[in-house]
Protein backbone atom coordinates (compact mmCIF):
# COMPACT_ATOMS: atom_id res chain seq x y z
CA UNK A 1 0.00 0.00 0.00
CA UNK A 2 1.22 3.53 -0.74
CA UNK A 3 2.12 5.25 2.52
CA UNK A 4 0.78 8.58 1.27
CA UNK A 5 -2.62 7.02 0.47
CA UNK A 6 -2.80 5.34 3.87
CA UNK A 7 -1.93 8.55 5.73
CA UNK A 8 -4.44 10.57 3.70
CA UNK A 9 -7.22 8.08 4.38
CA UNK A 10 -6.41 7.99 8.11
CA UNK A 11 -6.39 11.80 8.28
CA UNK A 12 -9.79 11.86 6.54
CA UNK A 13 -11.12 9.26 9.05
CA UNK A 14 -9.89 11.48 11.85
CA UNK A 15 -11.67 14.51 10.35
CA UNK A 16 -14.93 12.58 10.40
CA UNK A 17 -14.28 11.29 13.93
CA UNK A 18 -13.57 14.76 15.32
CA UNK A 19 -16.74 16.14 13.68
CA UNK A 20 -18.80 13.33 15.18
CA UNK A 21 -17.39 13.98 18.65
CA UNK A 22 -18.13 17.71 18.40
CA UNK A 23 -21.75 16.91 17.60
CA UNK A 24 -22.06 14.73 20.70
CA UNK A 25 -21.49 17.85 22.80
CA UNK A 26 -24.87 19.18 21.76
CA UNK A 27 -26.67 16.13 23.21
CA UNK A 28 -28.19 16.51 26.66
CA UNK A 29 -26.19 14.96 29.53
CA UNK A 30 -29.25 12.89 30.46
CA UNK A 31 -29.04 11.04 27.12
CA UNK A 32 -25.25 10.79 27.20
CA UNK A 33 -25.50 8.98 30.55
CA UNK A 34 -28.49 6.83 29.66
CA UNK A 35 -27.77 3.07 29.59
CA UNK A 36 -29.88 0.34 28.02
CA UNK A 37 -28.98 -2.35 30.55
CA UNK A 38 -26.99 -2.62 33.78
CA UNK A 39 -23.99 -4.12 32.01
CA UNK A 40 -23.93 -1.97 28.87
CA UNK A 41 -22.04 1.28 28.49
CA UNK A 42 -23.64 4.65 28.00
CA UNK A 43 -22.27 7.13 25.42
CA UNK A 44 -19.88 8.84 27.87
CA UNK A 45 -18.49 5.48 28.97
CA UNK A 46 -17.80 4.52 25.34
CA UNK A 47 -15.83 7.75 24.93
CA UNK A 48 -14.04 7.29 28.25
CA UNK A 49 -13.04 3.80 27.16
CA UNK A 50 -11.49 5.38 24.04
CA UNK A 51 -9.81 8.06 26.18
CA UNK A 52 -8.21 5.37 28.35
CA UNK A 53 -6.75 3.78 25.21
CA UNK A 54 -5.66 7.21 24.00
CA UNK A 55 -3.90 7.84 27.32
CA UNK A 56 -1.84 4.76 26.63
CA UNK A 57 -1.29 4.87 22.86
CA UNK A 58 -0.81 8.58 22.12
CA UNK A 59 2.33 8.95 24.31
CA UNK A 60 3.61 5.57 23.04
CA UNK A 61 3.15 6.65 19.41
CA UNK A 62 4.73 10.03 20.09
CA UNK A 63 7.78 8.45 21.72
CA UNK A 64 8.10 5.87 18.93
CA UNK A 65 8.14 8.62 16.28
CA UNK A 66 10.59 10.72 18.27
CA UNK A 67 13.03 7.86 18.83
CA UNK A 68 12.51 6.21 15.44
CA UNK A 69 15.61 7.44 13.62
CA UNK A 70 14.15 6.18 10.32
CA UNK A 71 13.10 8.00 7.17
CA UNK A 72 9.72 8.12 5.45
CA UNK A 73 9.08 5.30 2.95
CA UNK A 74 6.84 5.23 -0.13
CA UNK A 75 5.35 1.81 0.63
CA UNK A 76 3.75 0.36 3.74
CA UNK A 77 3.21 -3.35 4.25
CA UNK A 78 1.05 -4.53 7.15
CA UNK A 79 2.61 -7.01 9.56
CA UNK A 80 0.87 -10.34 10.21
CA UNK A 81 -0.21 -9.51 13.76
CA UNK A 82 -0.88 -5.83 13.06
CA UNK A 83 -3.12 -6.70 10.16
CA UNK A 84 -4.99 -9.20 12.33
CA UNK A 85 -5.48 -6.69 15.18
CA UNK A 86 -6.57 -3.88 12.86
CA UNK A 87 -9.03 -6.12 11.00
CA UNK A 88 -10.44 -7.59 14.23
CA UNK A 89 -11.51 -4.06 15.21
CA UNK A 90 -13.62 -3.53 12.10
CA UNK A 91 -17.26 -3.76 13.14
CA UNK A 92 -19.24 -6.52 11.47
CA UNK A 93 -22.75 -5.79 10.14
CA UNK A 94 -24.17 -6.72 13.48
CA UNK A 95 -21.86 -5.21 16.08
CA UNK A 96 -20.10 -8.21 17.64
CA UNK A 97 -19.32 -8.10 21.34
CA UNK A 98 -15.69 -8.08 22.39
CA UNK A 99 -14.04 -8.58 25.73
CA UNK A 100 -12.75 -5.47 27.47
CA UNK A 101 -9.65 -5.44 29.64
CA UNK A 102 -10.61 -4.56 33.18
CA UNK A 103 -8.42 -1.45 33.39
CA UNK A 104 -10.07 -0.10 30.22
CA UNK A 105 -13.63 -0.62 31.45
CA UNK A 106 -15.25 2.63 32.64
CA UNK A 107 -18.63 1.10 33.62
CA UNK A 108 -20.28 3.15 36.38
CA UNK A 109 -17.42 5.64 36.58
CA UNK A 110 -18.81 9.15 37.31
CA UNK A 111 -18.45 11.08 34.04
CA UNK A 112 -19.47 14.44 32.61
CA UNK A 113 -19.16 16.30 29.32
CA UNK A 114 -15.43 16.98 29.85
CA UNK A 115 -14.98 13.42 28.58
CA UNK A 116 -15.99 14.72 25.14
CA UNK A 117 -13.50 17.61 25.30
CA UNK A 118 -10.76 15.20 26.25
CA UNK A 119 -11.70 12.94 23.36
CA UNK A 120 -11.62 15.87 20.91
CA UNK A 121 -8.20 16.99 22.23
CA UNK A 122 -6.90 13.46 21.76
CA UNK A 123 -8.08 13.47 18.13
CA UNK A 124 -6.24 16.75 17.47
CA UNK A 125 -3.17 15.15 18.99
CA UNK A 126 -3.60 12.10 16.79
CA UNK A 127 -3.88 14.31 13.68
CA UNK A 128 -0.62 15.95 14.75
CA UNK A 129 1.04 12.54 15.16
CA UNK A 130 -0.24 11.39 11.75
CA UNK A 131 1.47 14.48 10.33
CA UNK A 132 4.69 13.81 12.20
CA UNK A 133 4.69 10.19 11.03
CA UNK A 134 5.25 11.37 7.44
CA UNK A 135 8.94 11.80 8.31
CA UNK A 136 9.53 8.26 9.64
CA UNK A 137 9.08 4.72 8.38
CA UNK A 138 5.64 3.29 9.18
CA UNK A 139 7.23 -0.16 8.70
CA UNK A 140 10.36 0.06 10.83
CA UNK A 141 8.99 2.24 13.63
CA UNK A 142 7.49 -0.07 16.25
CA UNK A 143 4.96 0.75 18.95
CA UNK A 144 4.31 -1.25 22.13
CA UNK A 145 0.79 -2.59 22.56
CA UNK A 146 -1.33 -2.20 25.67
CA UNK A 147 -1.53 -6.00 25.93
CA UNK A 148 2.19 -6.47 26.54
CA UNK A 149 5.31 -4.39 26.05
CA UNK A 150 6.82 -7.50 24.41
CA UNK A 151 4.27 -7.37 21.61
CA UNK A 152 5.06 -4.51 19.27
CA UNK A 153 3.28 -3.45 16.11
CA UNK A 154 4.43 -1.44 13.11
CA UNK A 155 3.50 2.24 13.47
CA UNK A 156 1.29 2.01 10.36
CA UNK A 157 -0.60 -0.93 11.87
CA UNK A 158 -0.91 0.83 15.22
CA UNK A 159 -2.54 3.82 13.53
CA UNK A 160 -4.98 1.58 11.63
CA UNK A 161 -5.77 -0.53 14.68
CA UNK A 162 -6.22 2.53 16.90
CA UNK A 163 -8.47 4.40 14.44
CA UNK A 164 -10.52 1.26 13.64
CA UNK A 165 -11.02 0.84 17.36
CA UNK A 166 -12.35 4.40 17.63
CA UNK A 167 -14.68 3.86 14.68
CA UNK A 168 -15.92 0.65 16.23
CA UNK A 169 -17.05 2.45 19.36
CA UNK A 170 -18.44 5.42 17.44
CA UNK A 171 -20.64 2.89 15.68
CA UNK A 172 -21.66 1.58 19.09
CA UNK A 173 -22.50 5.17 20.12
CA UNK A 174 -24.66 5.56 17.00
CA UNK A 175 -26.47 2.38 17.97
CA UNK A 176 -27.09 3.69 21.50
CA UNK A 177 -28.34 7.00 20.07
CA UNK A 178 -30.83 5.13 17.88
CA UNK A 179 -31.99 2.96 20.77
CA UNK A 180 -32.54 6.04 22.93
CA UNK A 181 -34.51 7.69 20.13
CA UNK A 182 -36.72 4.62 19.59
CA UNK A 183 -37.35 4.04 23.29
CA UNK A 184 -38.23 7.69 23.92
CA UNK A 185 -40.65 7.63 21.00
CA UNK A 186 -42.39 4.45 22.17
CA UNK A 187 -42.87 5.74 25.71
Amino acid at each position, binding site marked *: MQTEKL*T*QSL*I*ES*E*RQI*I*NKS*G*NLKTIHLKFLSCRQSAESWNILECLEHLNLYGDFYLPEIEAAIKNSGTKGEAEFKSGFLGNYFAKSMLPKDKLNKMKTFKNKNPLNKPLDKTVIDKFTDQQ*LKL*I*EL*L*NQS*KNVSLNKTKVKTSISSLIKLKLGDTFQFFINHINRHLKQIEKIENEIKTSSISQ
Partner: protein
Amino acid sequence: MKDIIELSEKTIILGRNEYLKVKGSVDTNIYFVESGSLRVFVLDDCEEQTIRFGYKENLVVSLDSFLTDKPSDFFIQAIKRTVVKIITKQQLQTFLKTENNITWWTAILENLVLQQLEREVDILTTSPKQRYERILKRSPQLFQEIPLRHIANYLRMSPETLSRLKKS
Protein backbone atom coordinates in the same frame (compact mmCIF):
# COMPACT_ATOMS: atom_id res chain seq x y z
CA MET B 1 -18.69 34.64 -9.89
CA LYS B 2 -22.05 33.20 -10.87
CA ASP B 3 -20.52 31.09 -13.67
CA ILE B 4 -18.08 29.38 -11.38
CA ILE B 5 -20.68 28.61 -8.73
CA GLU B 6 -22.79 26.95 -11.39
CA LEU B 7 -19.93 24.48 -11.95
CA SER B 8 -20.55 23.02 -8.53
CA GLU B 9 -22.24 19.65 -8.37
CA LYS B 10 -21.97 19.12 -4.65
CA THR B 11 -23.13 21.05 -1.60
CA ILE B 12 -22.17 20.19 1.95
CA ILE B 13 -23.56 21.32 5.26
CA LEU B 14 -21.27 21.70 8.25
CA GLY B 15 -22.54 21.94 11.81
CA ARG B 16 -21.04 24.46 14.22
CA ASN B 17 -17.36 23.68 14.92
CA GLU B 18 -17.24 20.93 12.30
CA TYR B 19 -14.06 20.66 10.29
CA LEU B 20 -14.05 20.99 6.51
CA LYS B 21 -10.34 20.20 6.47
CA VAL B 22 -7.75 19.16 9.04
CA LYS B 23 -3.96 19.47 9.11
CA GLY B 24 -2.05 17.27 6.70
CA SER B 25 -4.78 16.52 4.17
CA VAL B 26 -4.52 17.24 0.47
CA ASP B 27 -7.50 19.41 -0.40
CA THR B 28 -7.60 20.95 -3.86
CA ASN B 29 -11.25 22.00 -3.76
CA ILE B 30 -12.55 25.54 -3.93
CA TYR B 31 -15.42 26.21 -1.56
CA PHE B 32 -18.08 28.84 -2.13
CA VAL B 33 -19.77 29.85 1.11
CA GLU B 34 -23.55 30.02 0.59
CA SER B 35 -24.30 30.79 4.20
CA GLY B 36 -22.56 30.71 7.57
CA SER B 37 -18.88 31.38 8.26
CA LEU B 38 -15.58 29.54 8.39
CA ARG B 39 -12.15 30.18 9.75
CA VAL B 40 -8.81 28.96 8.47
CA PHE B 41 -6.22 28.37 11.18
CA VAL B 42 -2.95 26.65 11.99
CA LEU B 43 -2.05 24.96 15.24
CA ASP B 44 1.16 26.46 16.51
CA ASP B 45 2.37 24.42 19.47
CA CYS B 46 -1.17 23.64 20.66
CA GLU B 47 -2.20 27.26 20.09
CA GLU B 48 -4.61 28.12 17.31
CA GLN B 49 -3.69 31.01 15.05
CA THR B 50 -6.45 32.17 12.72
CA ILE B 51 -5.21 33.12 9.29
CA ARG B 52 -8.34 33.94 7.31
CA PHE B 53 -12.10 34.00 7.49
CA GLY B 54 -14.73 33.15 4.93
CA TYR B 55 -18.35 34.18 5.10
CA LYS B 56 -21.40 34.48 2.86
CA GLU B 57 -20.47 34.66 -0.83
CA ASN B 58 -16.71 34.26 -0.25
CA LEU B 59 -14.47 31.68 -1.83
CA VAL B 60 -12.45 29.62 0.62
CA VAL B 61 -9.56 27.45 -0.49
CA SER B 62 -6.44 25.81 0.91
CA LEU B 63 -4.43 27.66 -1.70
CA ASP B 64 -1.19 25.78 -0.99
CA SER B 65 -2.84 22.39 -1.61
CA PHE B 66 -4.79 23.77 -4.56
CA LEU B 67 -1.64 25.01 -6.30
CA THR B 68 0.75 22.17 -5.43
CA ASP B 69 -1.52 19.10 -4.95
CA LYS B 70 0.40 18.50 -1.72
CA PRO B 71 -0.78 18.27 1.91
CA SER B 72 -1.51 21.54 3.66
CA ASP B 73 -1.15 22.42 7.35
CA PHE B 74 -4.38 24.41 7.45
CA PHE B 75 -7.47 23.53 9.41
CA ILE B 76 -10.76 24.88 8.07
CA GLN B 77 -13.56 24.92 10.64
CA ALA B 78 -17.16 26.14 10.56
CA ILE B 79 -17.79 28.90 13.13
CA LYS B 80 -21.54 28.30 12.87
CA ARG B 81 -23.79 26.15 10.70
CA THR B 82 -22.38 26.64 7.22
CA VAL B 83 -23.41 25.61 3.72
CA VAL B 84 -20.64 25.40 1.10
CA LYS B 85 -20.67 24.51 -2.57
CA ILE B 86 -17.68 22.51 -3.79
CA ILE B 87 -15.91 23.37 -7.03
CA THR B 88 -13.19 20.85 -7.81
CA LYS B 89 -9.82 21.81 -9.25
CA GLN B 90 -10.68 19.79 -12.34
CA GLN B 91 -13.95 21.64 -12.85
CA LEU B 92 -12.10 24.93 -12.56
CA GLN B 93 -9.39 23.84 -15.00
CA THR B 94 -12.01 22.97 -17.61
CA PHE B 95 -13.70 26.30 -16.96
CA LEU B 96 -10.40 28.13 -17.51
CA LYS B 97 -10.03 26.82 -21.05
CA THR B 98 -12.06 29.84 -22.16
CA GLU B 99 -10.15 33.11 -22.61
CA ASN B 100 -12.72 35.29 -20.83
CA ASN B 101 -12.74 33.03 -17.84
CA ILE B 102 -8.96 33.22 -17.52
CA THR B 103 -9.19 37.01 -17.30
CA TRP B 104 -11.76 36.67 -14.55
CA TRP B 105 -9.65 34.14 -12.61
CA THR B 106 -6.49 36.25 -12.97
CA ALA B 107 -8.37 39.21 -11.49
CA ILE B 108 -9.39 37.07 -8.51
CA LEU B 109 -5.82 35.91 -7.93
CA GLU B 110 -4.45 39.45 -8.30
CA ASN B 111 -6.94 40.66 -5.76
CA LEU B 112 -5.86 37.88 -3.43
CA VAL B 113 -2.20 38.93 -3.73
CA LEU B 114 -3.17 42.47 -2.76
CA GLN B 115 -5.15 41.17 0.23
CA GLN B 116 -2.20 39.07 1.33
CA LEU B 117 0.08 42.14 1.17
CA GLU B 118 -2.35 44.07 3.36
CA ARG B 119 -2.44 41.17 5.78
CA GLU B 120 1.35 41.06 5.89
CA VAL B 121 1.45 44.72 6.86
CA ASP B 122 -1.28 44.03 9.48
CA ILE B 123 0.81 41.39 11.18
CA LEU B 124 3.94 43.56 11.13
CA THR B 125 2.12 46.55 12.63
CA THR B 126 3.19 46.88 16.25
CA SER B 127 0.33 48.90 17.69
CA PRO B 128 -2.79 46.81 18.44
CA LYS B 129 -4.91 49.94 17.93
CA GLN B 130 -3.54 50.44 14.42
CA ARG B 131 -3.98 46.75 13.60
CA TYR B 132 -7.61 47.01 14.66
CA GLU B 133 -8.21 50.22 12.71
CA ARG B 134 -6.67 48.84 9.52
CA ILE B 135 -9.02 45.85 9.53
CA LEU B 136 -12.06 47.86 10.54
CA LYS B 137 -11.46 50.19 7.60
CA ARG B 138 -10.76 47.37 5.17
CA SER B 139 -13.51 44.92 6.12
CA PRO B 140 -16.16 46.45 8.38
CA GLN B 141 -18.44 43.52 7.52
CA LEU B 142 -16.07 41.15 9.35
CA PHE B 143 -17.35 42.55 12.65
CA GLN B 144 -20.93 41.69 11.67
CA GLU B 145 -20.13 38.13 10.63
CA ILE B 146 -17.46 36.79 12.99
CA PRO B 147 -17.45 36.46 16.81
CA LEU B 148 -15.10 38.88 18.53
CA ARG B 149 -12.83 36.23 20.06
CA HIS B 150 -11.94 34.90 16.61
CA ILE B 151 -11.25 38.40 15.28
CA ALA B 152 -9.06 39.05 18.32
CA ASN B 153 -7.05 35.92 17.56
CA TYR B 154 -6.77 36.99 13.91
CA LEU B 155 -5.50 40.39 15.07
CA ARG B 156 -3.07 38.76 17.50
CA MET B 157 -4.49 40.37 20.62
CA SER B 158 -6.58 39.29 23.59
CA PRO B 159 -10.39 39.52 23.32
CA GLU B 160 -10.26 42.03 26.21
CA THR B 161 -7.91 44.33 24.30
CA LEU B 162 -10.09 44.16 21.18
CA SER B 163 -13.24 44.92 23.11
CA ARG B 164 -11.53 47.91 24.80
CA LEU B 165 -10.36 49.24 21.41
CA LYS B 166 -13.86 48.86 19.99
CA LYS B 167 -15.32 50.99 22.77
CA SER B 168 -12.76 53.80 22.53
